């Protein structure tokens, strides 16, 4: 299908973009467009105005300051995957990037677009949760910072207000002895995740510490398996310890099934991903 008619605005500064957002209550923001264009084409959305922020200056930069890796919201997935700075400071994000769509999608799609959309099956929201990241949001009355744990509130729902723009994303720079694993099940590479896991933790003195297991495509938003992760605190990642943690997943994660892919299968797959991730982390 073709989109319904809309007006197209291309502001030259974030201030102009915010003003346009304020002026047009039925407007949507266009960054890379790799989710918005399908939604427009299928007429799932029919905005009065499309505000194209894709070419705004200085919003796709990668930098490190005060122990935080900062990435502009307009950083494309292909640039995330190729950035040596990201590879060193947040290898989890780089591992996740190759699962986001296909090469032609990653050449246009942006990290900010993916995070602001908050698709429950998206990779990056879970990564941010696992890493303890935060989101830098710009509004007409200035900037505010929201922790990832408070940002994702539901299916396509976030703490972003409709007159605000996500400006940048920050995650702590990889600390000594921390390791990350990213695992996703999909029917074909790049397709929507059936279920996925972003794992992050410290391996020290033969034990795991500060482990975070963030699942996506299990419910309306990314979810941390708190009990399973806590059960492993200070312990070795032996087969028995991992199996005991997997047994706790049913307390942590309450997957929403879909036709042909029920809750129990999904929960079983969550356990499979935990085993894969932790056995690799231990190696």
């Amino acid at each position, binding site marked *: *299908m*073709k*989109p*319904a*008619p*809309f*007006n*197209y605005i*291309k502001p030259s500064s974030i201030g102009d973009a915010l003003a346009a957002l304020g002026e047009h209550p039925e407007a949507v923001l*266009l960054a890379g*467009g*790799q989710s918005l*264009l*399908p939604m*427009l*084409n*299928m007429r799932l959305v029919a905005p009065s105005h*499309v505000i*194209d922020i*894709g070419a705004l200056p200085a919003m796709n930069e990668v930098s490190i300051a005060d122990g935080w890796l900062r990435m502009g919201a307009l950083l494309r997935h*292909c640039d995330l995957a190729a950035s040596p700075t990201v590879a060193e400071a947040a290898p989890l994000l780089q591992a996740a990037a190759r699962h986001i*769509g*296909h*090469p*032609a*999608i990653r*050449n*246009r799609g942006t990290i900010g677009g993916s995070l602001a959309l908050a698709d429950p099956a998206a990779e990056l929201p879970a990564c941010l949760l696992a890493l303890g990241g935060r989101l830098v949001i710009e509004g007409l009355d200035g900037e505010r910072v929201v922790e990832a744990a408070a940002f994702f509130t539901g299916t396509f729902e976030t703490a972003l207000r409709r007159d605000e723009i996500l400006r940048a994303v920050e995650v702590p720079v990889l600390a000594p002895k921390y390791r990350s694993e990213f695992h996703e099940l999909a029917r*074909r*590479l*790049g*397709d929507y995740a059936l279920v996925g896991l972003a794992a992050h933790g410290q391996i020290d003195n033969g034990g795991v510490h500060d482990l975070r297991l963030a699942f996506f495509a299990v419910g309306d938003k990314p979810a941390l398996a708190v009990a399973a992760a806590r059960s492993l605190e200070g312990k070795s990642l032996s087969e028995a310890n991992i199996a005991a943690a997997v047994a706790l997943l049913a307390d942590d994660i309450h997957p929403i099934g879909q036709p042909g892919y029920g809750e129990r299968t999904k929960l079983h797959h969550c356990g499979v991903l935990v085993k894969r991730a932790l056995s690799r982390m231990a190696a």
Partner: protein
Amino acid sequence: MEPMIDIQTSVNGANLSARVPARQTLVDFLRYHLELTGSHVGCEHGSCGACTIRLDGDIVRGCLVLAAQADGAAVETIEGLSDSGELADLQATFHARNALQCGYCTPGMLLTAQALLADNPAPSREEIRAYISGNYCRCTGYQAIVDAIESVAAARRGVIS
């Protein structure tokens, strides 16, 4: 009133100005306005890859870019890349290996294969499959396409296969 946007863009090396509907996708602009019908329209939501074109050197989905977003950009299509000879060996090998049947996916497949070989001159069969995972072919079962890409990669490296 259909909102219209003025754009200036380069298509296959030729600079042009056009007034386009704000809602028109780039692939529809190429097909309807410029009559470049080599880029195909399959699913119109980014799943099939039949509309793959190049925008400022990167392969993209022609159905997931607005024509308005191509203002100031360089667009390349199968027509331009075919005329320039850039894809000649891929085209000949797809033909020789029966890597197409109906041909609907072929322009997108060729552009994607070319992007892969630019990134990775010696891809494994697994890497070829991963890279073309966003391009649907409903005829060949992919085996012959992977064969063709593998064989062109080897030939470009000077390896006889």
